[in-house]
Structure formats: structure tokens, C-alpha cells
């Protein structure tokens, strides 16, 4: 228990070493981003940069990064810098580098024409060397040299043009060919990840701190990528869909705004085709599902959390609820087709869609309501009981009001999810590809009483009806004919409308949550 090394409490101000390592991390990040842009085709790998093709510049950067990373390791190993490396880079890094070098060996030797045996041999040798380097030497060498070498090798291929624009290679037996256009960016992405991680470790001075920095760099990169994808997706749909959505949009006139895309059908006679019937269909669909699932789900949640004694019954309900939550939507569709359709006039109908989506919404509502009710502090129940108030009164006047924020949020998010579902209504609700305005269901006006059973009927509920997600699917497959002048524009406009409808639900749901949370905290 001796205080072996009393390291300084305060780390010195930024050293040159740290500055260089930091720069290497940054450069790797830039390389990663540019590589991503090249992969997505924003830029081409033969675009000239300062007189060289981009792929050559990539190569030079990777070479430099590789060299720098190796340099960090060596500098630390020979004690030129203040670092705290551990005796080994660890089993995870060792396994990763072994795999990488095995792959490098097998690929490159395959490219020079070795057979399977030879490739395995070369791969194994290189993998073994990588393993030995990573696992058996000190962390500063183990975490840098294999990585730097990979990056350097990649850089070398790119700089020399061995791999570059115009390069191609057929994958025998895979019916696919790799081209420089995709391989170069992928190689850059991969190599910059490796150098970024190694340089981050060097920046942190290896050891526990270095690992911390290295891992954080990777995680930040992951999260940024996810967010980029998210923003990219939404932006992509928005950019493509705006023209369609706002086709003929105007302010003023008879109504305050005229928004033909949302208020017109796609009948032949519409001057600007719109998605009104599908929009109305979606609205009714959601209303129907909510009317069925919300009371049922909340009621069940009340029973489960307030009345039922924990036992086999509640256990079974819980398993069933979670099971339903994860049941694939297409299975709900099959169920609706097999169970509901024969009971609602034997054809695809709005009401069959409503119930199918209602069944899907039910577990979502039940789970969130139950959580919300369980989150109501027991103190409220005790306080109410101690005032001599009966159980049901307590539930009604204390528990449910206090649970409303959670229930509301859950319901809105659940509705957002089912509003975008296609598979179940594909099998149960159908509807036209380009329904005219008159195809919009008129549910309220459709009720009819009759003297014979079933006494009440509503043709609007019993007809196949279109909804936004289904219409989008139908457009993709069956396509446009007739009067749509610019089919792509219409389809993207529809996709954007659907996205907006769903995202609005989500935004409201999330905002509700914030609102109630703020209110609780004030």
C-alpha cells in the first residue's frame, strides 16, 4: 500500500505533444466528414484539390495521420513526453487490430493473386503480428503503431493511385463490383476513425485518461452521425416535398388561405391534385383507434395498478401487453384481415383499419398509463385514504388527474406511431391510389338507423378508405396515372405531409412532456 508514484495533481499546461495530438484528432474528424461527403456523392473523389485528385489528397492526409500516430506512440515510449501508459492496450484493442490486419492481409494478398490458402496465411501472419504488437507491448506502442500502420498503408494505396478514381474490382461470386468511388471514401472513413481514436488516446496521455478520451471521441462521432442522419432525412424529404406541398398555396381569397394540396382530392378534375381524402382518412383512423384504445388502455392501467393484486392474472396481462407491444405490425394486419374484415362486411373498411390500429395502440397506451399511474406518489393515495375518502373517489379525483400528464404524453406519442403505420391498413383498409375528394369518408353524416339488425350502420365506416401512409405505398407500387402532372413532386409532397403529420404528433407529445415537467417543477 505504498504510494508508488505520486503523480502531479495538476497536469501541466498544454504541451506541444497534446497540441499536435489534438490537431491529429481534429484532422481525422475533418477527413471523416469529407469522406462521408464523398461517399454520399456530394463531392467526387477525382475532384481536384490544390492540383491533385481528392483521392490523392486523402491518401496524403492518411499517410500524415498514420505517421503522426506512430510518432505519438514512439515519443511516449522513449519517454519524450509525460504520459501514463498502461502495460498493454488491452484485449479489446488487440482483438480489433488482429481482425483488421487479418482482413488487410487477406485482401491485399488476394489482390496480388494469391489463392485462398495463401490469403489465409498472409492474413494470419499479419493478424498475429498486430496482436503481438497491440497486446504484448506497452500501451503507447500497442494503441498507435498498428493503427498508424493501417492508416499509412491505406494512405499509400491512395497516394500512389493503386486505389483511386476508376479503380474497380469484381467480387467473384458476389455478383457485385467495387468501384473507387465508393471504396475510397469507405477506406477514408475507416482509417480516419482509427487514427482519430489513436490520436485521442495519445492526447489523453494513454492510460485510463487516454482511454476515456478515445472512447469519448468515438461516442461523440456516433451520436453526431446519428443526428446527421436524422437531420439529413428530414431535410431531404422536406426539400423534395416542399414544392409539391405548397403547389398552388396562396393566402387570401375566399378562405383565409388556400392550400390545394391539403384540400383537394386527386380526382381527375382537380386542377391541383391533393391528398385531402387520405388526410381525412388518417384523421378518422386516428380518431377511431384513440376512441377504442385510450379508454380501454387507461381503464386497464387503473385496474392493474389500483385494484388488481399482484398475481398470475396481472403477470399474464403484463406478458400479453408487452407481447402485443412488440408484435410486428404486419401481424396485426393479418389479424385484422382474418378477424375483423369478415365481421365488418367482408371487405376492407375504415372501421377494420380503426380497430386494427386500435389494437396496436392499446399496449402503448396501457404501458404508458400504467407507468404514469404508478408514478403518482403513494402519499396522495394515503392522504386521501386518511381523509376517509373511498378508493374509487381517490382514483377519480387524485390519481387520474395526477397521472394525466403521463397518459397524455404517452397517447400522443403512440398516436404518432400508429398514424404512420402502413402494413396493417394495407391489409385491412385499402383505398384508392388517387382518391377524388368525394372519396373522403363522411363518417359523421354516414350514420343510418334501420329497423333490421344491426340497426345502426354507417357506410362511410364500411368502405375501403385511403390514408396517407397507404397512399404513399400505393404511389410507390401502383403509381400515378391520369391527371398528375408531376408525379415525383406529388409523391414527395405526400411523403412530406405524412412526415409532418407524424412529427407534429411527436412534437406535441414531447412539448407536452416538457410543459408538464416545467409545471411540476415550478
Amino acid at each position: 500500500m505504498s504510494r508508488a508514484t505520486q503523480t502531479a495533481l495538476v497536469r501541466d499546461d498544454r504541451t506541444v505533444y497534446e497540441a499536435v495530438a489534438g490537431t491529429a484528432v481534429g484532422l481525422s474528424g475533418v477527413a471523416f466528414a469529407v469522406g462521408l461527403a464523398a461517399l454520399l456523392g456530394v463531392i467526387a473523389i477525382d475532384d481536384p484539390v490544390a492540383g491533385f485528385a481528392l483521392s490523392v489528397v486523402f491518401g496524403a492526409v492518411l499517410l500524415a495521420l498514420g505517421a503522426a500516430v506512430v510518432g505519438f506512440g514512439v515519443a511516449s515510449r522513449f519517454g519524450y513526453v509525460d504520459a501514463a501508459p498502461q502495460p498493454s492496450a488491452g484485449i479489446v484493442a488487440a482483438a480489433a487490430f488482429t481482425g483488421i490486419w487479418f482482413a488487410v492481409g487477406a485482401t491485399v494478398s488476394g489482390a496480388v493473386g494469391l489463392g485462398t490458402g495463401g490469403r489465409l496465411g498472409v492474413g494470419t501472419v499479419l493478424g498475429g503480428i498486430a496482436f503481438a504488437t497491440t497486446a504484448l507491448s506497452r500501451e503507447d506502442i500497442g494503441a498507435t503503431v498498428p493503427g498508424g500502420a493501417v492508416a499509412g498503408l491505406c494512405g499509400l494505396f491512395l497516394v500512389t493511385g493503386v486505389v483511386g478514381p476508376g479503380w474497380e474490382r469484381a467480387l467473384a461470386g458476389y455478383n457485385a463490383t467495387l468501384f473507387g468511388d465508393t471504396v475510397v471514401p469507405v477506406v477514408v472513413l475507416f482509417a480516419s476513425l482509427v487514427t482519430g481514436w489513436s490520436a485521442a488516446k495519445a492526447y489523453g496521455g494513454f492510460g485510463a485518461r487516454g482511454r476515456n478520451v478515445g472512447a469519448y471521441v468515438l461516442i461523440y462521432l456516433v451520436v453526431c452521425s446519428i443526428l446527421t442522419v436524422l437531420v439529413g432525412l428530414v431535410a431531404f424529404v422536406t426539400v423534395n416535398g416542399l414544392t409539391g406541398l405548397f403547389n398552388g398555396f396562396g393566402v387570401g381569397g375566399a378562405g383565409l388561405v388556400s392550400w390545394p394540396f391539403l384540400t383537394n382530392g386527386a380526382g381527375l378534375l382537380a386542377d391541383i391534385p391533393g391528398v385531402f381524402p387520405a388526410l381525412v382518412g388518417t384523421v378518422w383512423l386516428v380518431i377511431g383507434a384513440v376512441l377504442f384504445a385510450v379508454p380501454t388502455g387507461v381503464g386497464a392501467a387503473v385496474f392493474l395498478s389500483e385494484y388488481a393484486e399482484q398475481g398470475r392474472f396481472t403477470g399474464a396481462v403484463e406478458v400479453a401487453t408487452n407481447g402485443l407491444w412488440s408484435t410486428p405490425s404486419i401481424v396485426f394486419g393479418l389479424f385484422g384481415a382474418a378477424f375483423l374484415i369478415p365481421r365488418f362486411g367482408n371487405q376492407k373498411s375504415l372501421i377494420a383499419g380503426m380497430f386494427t390500429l386500435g389494437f396496436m395502440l392499446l399496449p402503448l397506451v396501457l404501458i404508458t398509463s400504467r407507468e404514469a399511474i404508478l408514478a403518482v406518489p403513494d402519499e396522495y393515495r394515503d392522504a386521501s385514504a386518511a381523509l376517509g375518502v373511498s378508493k374509487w373517489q381517490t382514483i377519480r379525483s387524485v390519481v387520474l388527474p395526477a397521472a394525466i400528464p403521463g397518459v397524455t404524453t404517452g397517447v400522443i406519442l403512440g398516436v404518432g406511431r400508429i398514424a404512420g403505420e402502413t402494413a396493417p391498413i394495407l391489409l385491412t383498409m385499402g383505398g384508392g391510389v388517387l382518391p377524388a375528394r368525394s372519396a373522403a369518408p363522411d363518417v359523421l353524416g354516414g350514420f343510418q338507423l334501420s329497423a333490421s339488425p344491426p340497426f345502426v350502420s354507417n357506410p362511410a365506416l364500411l368502405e375501403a378508405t385511403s390514408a396517407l401512409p397507404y397512399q404513399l405505398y400505393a404511389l410507390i407500387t401502383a403509381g400515378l396515372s391520369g391527371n398528375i402532372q408531376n408525379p415525383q413532386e406529388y409523391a414527395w409532397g405526400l411523403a412530406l405531409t405524412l412526415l409532418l403529420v407524424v412529427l407534429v404528433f411527436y412534437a406535441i407529445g414531447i412539448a407536452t412532456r416538457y410543459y408538464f415537467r416545467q409545471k411540476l417543477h415550478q
Partner: protein
Amino acid sequence: MSQTDTAETSTNRTDGQQVSTTAGETAEETRPVWTSYEAGGETKLAVRDIDVHYGDDHALKGVSMDIPEQSVTALIGPSGCGKSTFLRCLNRMNDRIRAASVDGAVELDGEDIYQDGVDLVELRKRVGMVFQSPNPFPKSIRENVSYGPRKHGDIETGLLARLTGRAEPQREETLVEQSLERAALWEEVNDRLDDNALGLSGGQQQRLCIARCLAVDPEVILMDEPASALDPIATSKIEDLIKDLAQDYTVVVVTHSMQQAARVSDQTAVFLTGGELVEYDDTEKIFENPESQRVEDYISGKFG
């Protein structure tokens, strides 16, 4: 009354440790002398040999005591000794804990509250409770106070009632005012009765809970460490209130502060770890000259 003031040792404590050794040893041999202690006044609640189990855990062991009307009875003891459990026996709030089972009898005005057919709702109207941490409902102050009477149908406020003219807003006003007055809160909140009760300070919230309890017009008020979550100023307000309430109500209060027990109560029951009632006597007697060595140790801060 026979056991009161029988202690032969000096009533002036000079050095707790020494005194207790002598006094305690004798007391320990002739143990439950105190069980026959009879407080002054009519007995409101008579606890008869109550045992409480939580599953296999024996939390209260054969406790009996008489709680007199219109006085403050304090329950003290180290953490986990069963004070709260005992308190919850008095209005059957233990029924709400699944694991708990209660044996024995508690008589409220001579009627056993554990016999079959007891209406819990009725019982809890008569035996009110205030909890350790203030727990107002997330409603307006007014609604908090009138919650009990409304639910019991004493006050009607609904749309129907208003339509049929049964609503008595004036009566509600009066009740709310009286209860808040009684809980010494009216002054502070009369201009914002419609504000959310969660906006009040801790001490105010606790007094609101007391007002809420008073609005139901109970006979007994049980309080479980009502001031433990409060700052000293709020605490002293609550303590004043407790003393005040004893004029009309029977108050039973659990506290973890011996000083508080000494300040507010008429008689004190000391529970010790294991769920035993070790001593029950006039508060003065308990703090000056307890019978039992263990109580002496506990009060002098030897443990706990």
C-alpha cells in the same frame, strides 16, 4: 396514576450516565410497571395487545396503552422501532400495506375498530392523519381543504349541484376559512386560495395538510413526524399548533426529536428497537426520571 412520581432519584439530572445506571437497574428488574399507567382524562383510544407483522418480521410486540382525550401523546424511539407502524394501527392505515397483518384490538370510544364490518371510510373520518412530509394534492389551496368534505358529500360543488341549487359556495368558504384559521394558515394564504398548493413553502404545506385534516372534523389526529421535513421556524409553528389542537382534539404525535416530545406532549410513550413499548408515562416523568435503564440510555443519547 399510582406509578407517577414514584422515582426516588433526584429530578434534576446532573450527569445522565451515572444517574441512569442506578435508577435503571432497579427498573429493569421489575419491568412493566408503566403498563398500568393511567393518563388523566377520559380514554379516547384504548390499544389492547396489538401485534403487527410485516411478513415474517414482527414489528410491534404486544403493545397496550390508553390514549386520553384532549391531550397530546408523543411516541418516541429510535428509527425502525415501530412508531409509525403503531400510529398506522390507530386508523387502520396498515390495511393499505399488503405485507402487514395486525392482531389485537384498538377501541375508539369503546368500540373495537378491528372487528368485522368496520367502515374504514367512517373510521378515518373520525381518526385523521398528518404525514411526515407534507403531501398536499396538486390542486388549489381551497380544493385541498374542501377535498374531504366534498368527497363525503358534505359540500356539493359539481355542475349538477349548482344547477339544482344544492351547491353551497358560502358553506364551503366558511369551512375553508375556519379550517385554515385553526391551522394558523389563514393569514398567510387568504389572498391566494386558488393558487396551487404546491407553491407553498414546506411549513405552509404541512399546515395546509393539517387544515385539510381538520376540515373533515375528526376526533383524533395522528401525526407522523409532522415537522421532520421543516426548518426550525416552521417547526415551532407546528409545535404551537399541536399544543393548541389538544384543546379540542385527541392528538397522537410521532417524533424523532426528544426535545420536541418534551415541548409539546402531555404523555410520552417510548418504543425501543424490536417493536416494544418500553415505557409510557407523563412526559415530565419520562424525561426527568424514567423507570427503565434503556429509556434512560436512549434519552441521554447513549444510542440512536
